[in-house]
């Protein structure tokens, strides 16, 4: 119990520190002027970092949220009797599409969805649904046959077996998939700036265009910190919501 509370305090501290850091631009100027002495423009001038973080978060939350809901549902479906036939196809597809670079997906999505948030959302969704589906399948498949049989033998319906036995036992693996998806998503979302979706990719793209490494570092550092923070929060959520049993 004490360990859990300590974990939360640490996570909250991290969160507060992050918020303070992105809202104090003078700190960034000070830091970047030391890294890149002689650089005139140190931070991206057209938007505050806090605004960029906000845009980034909206992109990530919606695309990752949709990916988690669809990915878990798909993973559950293909491990049921009714969906067994699709299991191989879905797991192959999920492995295969992981090999396509997200920039390619983005490029393909633009003709369909135009510029802006929409193609970015589609690319992020497609890219982050994969680890969720794969880990959901792996997690559910790794639940022992004896345990499932015991549940059925005790008189649980299929739905009760799924909700009370299979999902709780698969949660550690599923959560690992979600964490991977979110972290990848936060990194990949920076590409959205290329097609005008905003977010932390904006200073990176601007920095590349104007050959200003300070802008690039600003966006990359903020995105990196955001990914760490998100991973930390998800890990802490998992620990709090699901019992830690001896495995």
């Amino acid at each position, binding site marked *: 119990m004490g360990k859990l509370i300590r974990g939360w305090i640490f996570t909250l501290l991290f969160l507060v520190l992050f918020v303070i850091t992105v809202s104090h631009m003078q700190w960034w100027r000070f830091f970047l002027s030391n890294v890149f002495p002689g650089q005139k423009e140190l931070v991206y001038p057209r938007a505050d970092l806090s605004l960029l973080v906000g845009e980034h978060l909206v992109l990530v939350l919606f695309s990752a949220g949709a990916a988690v809901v669809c990915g878990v549902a798909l993973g559950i479906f293909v491990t049921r009797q009714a969906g067994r036939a699709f299991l191989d196809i879905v797991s192959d597809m999920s492995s295969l599409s992981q090999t396509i670079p997200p920039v390619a997906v983005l490029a393909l999505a633009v003709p369909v969805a135009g510029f802006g948030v929409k193609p970015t959302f589609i690319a992020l969704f497609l890219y982050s649904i994969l680890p969720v589906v794969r880990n959901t399948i792996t997690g559910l498949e790794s639940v022992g046959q004896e*345990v499932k*049989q015991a549940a059925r033998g*005790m*008189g649980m319906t299929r739905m009760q077996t799924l909700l009370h036995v299979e999902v709780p*036992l698969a949660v550690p693996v599923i959560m690992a998939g979600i964490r991977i998806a979110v972290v990848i998503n936060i990194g990949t979302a920076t590409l959205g700036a290329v097609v005008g979706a905003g977010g932390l990719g904006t200073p990176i793209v601007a920095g590349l265009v104007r050959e200003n490494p300070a802008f690039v570092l600003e966006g990359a550092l903020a995105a990196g910190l955001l990914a760490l923070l998100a991973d930390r929060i998800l890990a802490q959520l998992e620990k709090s919501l699901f019992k830690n049993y*001896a495995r």
Partner: protein
Amino acid sequence: MIRLERVSKYYGENPAVKNLSFTVQGGEVCVLIGPSGCGKSTTLKLINRLLSADSGEIFINNKNINAFKPELLRREIGYVIQSIGLFPHMTVAENIATVPRLLSWDRAGISHRVDELLELIGLDRRVYRDKFPGELSGGEAQRIGVARALAADPPLLLMDEPFGAVDPLTREVLQQEFLNIQQELKKTVIFVTHDLNEAIRLADRIIIMRGGEIIQNDTPERVLSRPKNRFVRDFVGTDRVLKRLSRIPVATYMLEARAIAIDAKTNRMRSGRQAENRHFFWVTAADKRLLGWVDKHDLEAQSPVKQAMTRIDPKTDALNQHATLREALAHILSQNVRTIAVVDDKCRLVGEIGLSQIEKATEEVRENG
């Protein structure tokens, strides 16, 4: 209580169970045994409808099991499988409460029932309620499995090699506990095992199966004395007489123990010393607790009994009254003695048994063959 009529189950072309018919009476322990793949586990799963029969009918209390929804049927039937069947993410209490929760009992009722069952299987509720299965020993996990099956007090219990995953020593303890619990609860039990000794010890009726068919359906005594054919004869092995000894409790053949009791304060003999033709006596405390034995000559030499006697530990060197003649024989042979003391659960001397009594038993067994 339960009746199978010409039940068959095929996996593709191959019959797992073929034309199976048998009846189990209420309160009876029926053991299904046979080599692996003989259809014994399949039979259990057909009864609780984890599998459905291709032909034939199964009745519980004269009602066809297909008349119930499978889930509702299963909540009325206790089901025990090897310890791995416990839910690893639930505590012991939650595991035991599985079926009562499915039946929507109220919380207080469930909690009370969990405590009751933990007591029944002899585990301290304060220690075990909140443990997870991963923290239990094999024997403890098996006991919890049995408790979980008994939780909603089902009249019928299906046990699929419930003691298969524990070491032989623990298995014997669990078997004895099972017999004690069964004596109290009088459930109808269908028990699957591949261990013949277990079958002989626990069964009221043994059904020997091969290739999905019943080869012999009989009492353990008759299976041992009148094996129906070569297969059964080979299956029960050449030590049939020895196996039959494990059906007979020592209490049936033990003799009254010749004992002298000593006073705790004076260390002097309080009673006993029959002028009899034997060369030693058991020594007990005033409350009949077994302390040791003393040689007749040493006793006559008038020395204090406590100095003259040889101490024995009733827990290891004496036999519990619930033990079988087979265990008695094993004790006598391994300790190289002619007679061994029989004590009750509180280590009080209740009798003695020797090689001659065991010989007498085997002769009677052979004659009644």
